[in-house]
């Protein structure tokens, strides 16, 4: 049970880790192209085919990057820029869906699946551990090749 709890906590940590992209510090003054790209990396243009905004070559995306620069220059934080774009164009522009409503499933399902697999594995763990305790007595079923290799190496020693 304790093991299960550990796996569960680890999974939640994994989920938390997934849901928080690296933060970009708030920009003072005119933002550089790198500062704009750091924000644009986590945004998608709704008209392009699944290309992040920082590398999209279309004129529309260049305009969006200009808009990000303007917002950052006005003192918007990274999160405020994301919120602004999501409010304007819908949540599909965000590289990660905000953790609310149905979107929680994005973050919960994979860790739950891993917890479930861990649980199933853990259920058999005790049995295998018991067997492993007596493994010294168990004859190993090594393949012929490995056995002959070990024997030859032993003979050399």
């Amino acid at each position: 049970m304790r093991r299960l709890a550990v796996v569960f906590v680890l999974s939640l940590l994994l989920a938390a880790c997934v849901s928080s992209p690296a933060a970009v510090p708030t920009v003072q003054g005119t933002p550089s192209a790198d500062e704009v790209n750091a924000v644009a990396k986590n945004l998608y243009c709704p008209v392009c085919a699944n290309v992040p905004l920082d590398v999209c070559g279309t004129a529309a995306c260049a305009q969006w990057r200009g808009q990000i620069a303007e917002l950052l220059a006005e003192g918007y934080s990274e999160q405020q820029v994301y919120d602004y774009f999501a409010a304007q164009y819908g949540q599909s522009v965000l590289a990660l869906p905000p953790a609310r409503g149905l979107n929680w499933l994005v973050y919960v399902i994979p860790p739950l699946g891993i917890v479930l697999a861990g649980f199933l594995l853990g259920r058999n763990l005790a049995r295998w551990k018991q067997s492993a305790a007596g493994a010294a007595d168990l004859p190993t079923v090594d393949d012929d090749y490995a056995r002959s290799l070990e024997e030859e190496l032993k003979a050399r020693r």
Partner: protein
Amino acid sequence: MIADLGFFALLVAFLLALYACAAAAYGHWRKQARWVASARSAAVLGFPLLTVACASLVYSLVNLDFQLQYVTQVSSHSMPLYLRATALWGGQAGSLLFWSWLMAAFTFAVMLREWRRDRDLEPWVIIVTSATLAFFLALILFFENPFLRYWQGITGTVWTAMWQPAGAQPYIPMDGNGLNPLLRHPGMIIHPPMLYIGFVAFVVPFAFAIAALVTGRSDDRWIRVTRRWTLVAWLFLSLGLILGSRWAYDVLGWGGYWGWDPVEIAAFMPWLTGTAFLHSVMIQEKRGMFKHWNMLLIILTYCLVIFGTFLTRSGVLSSVHAFAQSAIGPMFFAFISLTFIVSLALLNKRWSTLRSEVEMTSLLSRESLFLINNLLFMGILLICFWGVVFPIVSEASGGIGRAIPALAHIFTGQRATVGPIFYESATGPLWAALLLLMGVAPLAAWRASTARTLGRTIWKPFIVSLVVLAGLLVGGMRNPLGLLSLWICAFVLLVTIYEFWRGAQARMQRGENPLQAFWRLIGRNRRRYGGYIIHLGVILIAVGIIGIEMFQQETQGRLAVGERMHLGSYSIEYESLAEFETPDGRLVDRAVVNVYKDGAFLTQLYPRRDFYYESQQAMTIPGLRSTLENDVYVLLVDWEAVSASSATFKLYVNPLVNWVWYGGFVFIFGTLVASWPEAELRPVRQRLRAANTERA
């Protein structure tokens, strides 16, 4: 005329595929071998017929028969000959035909094998392969016919039909739209065929698995028969993925090779289950365990192949790799559902006969470590699958919100995007665990191993790997995740090399020189050492991925002529920009950029932007300097029109990325070694020959 020939060949191939299914089923039911033989002949004929259909389409493409709608869509006067021919797989209809041709080729090859020992499986293998082929041919004939022609009515209306409608005249456009610029790359000429071969080849192990389920055979015969087929499928799928990555690196202008795009993931998912399957079948062969699991894995792999094809072709997902929206989506969905349900129902029916012959006895056995390996693959699959389908689920769930207003704030119906950060964060730890297991698992003994036995084999590489770690720290690396992942790579690499060394050492005792010992070591046990070579390839790929993912640097800036931009020890200088047109219909803007390292001139690069007049699409082609240490990757983002007095560049330094490609070569070589027929077979043949001579 040629198009008519192609269409008739297609039609006959479809009818024959249907006949093969029916005749094989009837032959099995009535226990009449002649019906099964007839079904086999029909299945064999599919390949030559579809060769005729493909050749007809290629002929039309090469000769620019613009009356064919497909030719107009993907070809043009300005395209060179080789691109006109490869435009066969440049559009939806043509690529479906190409897919079917490959499918027919594999059916043809599998039908020509020696069936004496597997008579009971034969009808069902024919049914599964022919049913799959018939499905794809039906899609082509009824939804995506590449031989449709343009016709013009008296009123000037243009429409498409196979044959001339009453009162209509042939309509031949002056020129075609040309191939999508993204597909005009050498990588795109090879990448789709490799991927398709990988996809279609998985139908062979799946067909044998279904045949074993239907006939109730619980032995591992189907696995032994299909081992090499599976390896071939896996080899081509891996090759397709590696080539696709290289194409993305060269053409998409992302600064990387893998964008976790839904279509990329769709091709990656069958690779995950296929890899798990290749590991897991060893347990069934050796210990008679995991029979249910292996069935499930091959069913999943096949269904994921069809699912990937569905995602790419239905238009349900937005991707740079996807074909346009098409009406074939629902058909695909129905086919996947039917295949999955029927396969699972069969597995359920045979559940009790597929019980393991022995029990798992120890946590430290090779079988238990392989099981954990399989679970890790499945974990990654779950993350990938969920990330790909969630956007569809989020959009489709809007119906619930509309039906139950109280739940409208949960089921908003807004489409969500799941970007690379999700996949990278969620799969990262699982990849690390897999990598570590890759070094340890092959050293564990079957049934039971002890920590002491395992420790004895790995302690030396472990100590050396710590020296490598210390070297990295002394070299100034401080990124904890980078250190951990590179240490894992070093450890697994050393363990694998040590295994080669131990094996060669044993042979050298027999008086063989080191080169002979190494060569014969691999030759006499190809499966084992081929596997180790594959692992070496994976480690090299992993080093490349760690390099670019964790240590990539990038910057962007606008430079006046003669001005420099710096990134780490590198700097680039904008020298000039030229604009010119090319005979293949491009307007090219090409910059000349000087690259310096620590202030010393290194090389000149030519990043450019190609604008295709026909499709009105622009392509950003990087300027690239590649070494084993890193790639300097320069993109031309923007420039001052007319004067070109200044231009904006994006500069990336991608450490170790070339290891991905070199690792790919090692990986492919290892797969070839592992799938090559074992040397032990030769004496058998020799013995047979000797016996025959004696008898004579």
